[in-house]
């Protein structure tokens, strides 16, 4: 049992492990499992020698109590660490390595450690979760995401909202015979908010095409959604599609003529569109002169 296996591989990061002692193959951690682990021989280095692991990491932090709840980490190294646990079984001991590179392909960090997975709670597979459990979990991840947005941890918030959305979609197709009307509406509202939040985060990184797609999904469910109209108008502006942006702004102002954000967006767009019209008129004039 000394063969190194790949846990997960991407060009920017690789996770490997070597089993040192086998565990009980009938008990493995799934989503929501509580794991009790012992972490030893933690080393972190790069080409210039020893380095440290960010203090945002709970698992590699000083106050780590040995408990990991699968699916509930936020810092990316902790989430990657969870991937290792999800490929271990109860009682197993392994040597693990996590290698990170930056956008230039340079080695940033190589973390190695010994993991002993001492205890695992047995959990139902997500396919067997009731709709109530899925909805509860989705709400939990959404709340965590909102907190992360407040802390400006945008990519981590994005991953929370993504997971929450997956759990909402897992409830679908919603069966009206099983779920009452008020709850169905709550579920749809949740979905709308998640799309809106994802759009907000894409907008922070100027990913306008993604913003358009997400806002379109919201507006399909709720034609008069102000946030989606506003963000879509910003995305259209970002893509220099000013006429489309203008339509969304006008629709937004119809819903609330006093909305400051829409007014400001209208003020930004007006001179651009006027300039465009002027140019257009000049071109036409030239054609006929």
């Amino acid at each position, binding site marked *: 049992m000394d063969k190194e*296996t*790949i*846990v*997960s591989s*991407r*060009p*920017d*990061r690789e996770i490997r492990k070597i089993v040192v002692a*086998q565990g009980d*193959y*009938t008990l*493995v*951690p*799934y*989503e929501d499992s509580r794991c009790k682990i012992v972490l030893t021989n933690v080393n972190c280095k790069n080409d210039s020698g020893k380095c440290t692991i960010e203090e945002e990491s709970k698992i590699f932090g000083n106050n780590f109590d040995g408990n990991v709840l699968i699916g509930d980490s936020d810092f*990316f190294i902790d*989430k*990657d660490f969870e991937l290792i646990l*999800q*490929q271990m*079984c109860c009682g197993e001991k392994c040597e693990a390595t996590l290698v*990170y*590179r*930056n*956008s230039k392909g340079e080695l*940033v*960090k190589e973390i190695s450690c010994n993991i002993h997975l001492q205890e695992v709670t047995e959990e139902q*597979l*997500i*396919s*067997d979760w009731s709709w109530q459990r899925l909805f509860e979990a989705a709400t939990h991840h959404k709340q965590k995401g909102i907190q992360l947005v407040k802390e400006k941890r*945008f*990519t981590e918030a*994005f*991953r929370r909202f*993504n*997971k929450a*959305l*997956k759990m909402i*979609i*897992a409830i*679908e*197709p919603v069966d009206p015979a099983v779920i009452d009307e008020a709850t169905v509406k709550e579920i749809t509202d949740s979905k709308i908010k998640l*799309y809106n939040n*994802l759009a907000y*985060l*894409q907008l922070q*990184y100027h*990913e306008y*095409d*993604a*913003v358009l*797609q*997400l806002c379109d999904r919201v507006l399909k469910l709720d034609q008069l959604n102000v946030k989606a109209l506003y963000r879509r108008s910003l995305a259209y502006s970002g893509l220099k599609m000013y006429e489309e942006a203008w339509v969304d702004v006008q629709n937004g102002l119809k819903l609330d003529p006093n909305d400051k954000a829409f007014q400001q967006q209208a003020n930004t767009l007006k001179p651009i569109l006027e300039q465009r019209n002027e140019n257009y008129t000049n071109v036409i004039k030239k054609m006929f002169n």
Partner: protein
Amino acid sequence: MTDSDEDNLNFDDLQNITKQIERYKNDPDTSGMFVSGWDDADQDVTVVDDPKANPIDYILWAAENGNVQILNEILSKRPDLVHACDSDGYTPLHRAAYGNHILAIASLLKAGANINLKTELGWTPLHSACNWNNYEAVARLLAAGADSYAVSDGEQTPLHLAAAVSHSKSTLLILLLREDSTEIANKCNNSGETPIQLARGHGIYAPIFEMVLPAVSYIRSIAFTCNSYMKEV
């Protein structure tokens, strides 16, 4: 006139039958009846009359039927048989995955079974489990490090197989909840079809693939979203 009356009658019947078939196809409880058989690599498996006559047949039989006691007995006497395979390249782990026998899978993994071994047609045990919506086996194999990107001879990933069967929501949930699923959902097989396209054409669960739209899955790229060092310039 009599002829045409009869024609009308038959036509009405046909319409009714077609409607009924559609109804069954759209009902999750009965849609499994319509699984297409053309791509079934598990078909035409040679029927063995007496599995005990040959140790290879015996371990394959025990794995496929989930007889853990016999499986463990064979493995304790002949540990090498964990690597046995039939003429199509199916190992005991493939057979256990096909039968959705979680405890048999655990025994075989403990005995050192190779999780990513391929059959003659390039199927890994994960392919077998996915093709039959054996989601418990799917989850168990992934937890043992099964390669979700593995492709068969037709360049089919396990997700392609799960997407192409009509009764596979449980397996799809397991696969699509993983962060690698966005990339795999857009991979083409050798007919140029992605799992998303297959799901639209075959299954009734195509809307589940909303989970892996790029816009909801990552900002710029998975690497950018899941590795903070990629943001540093």
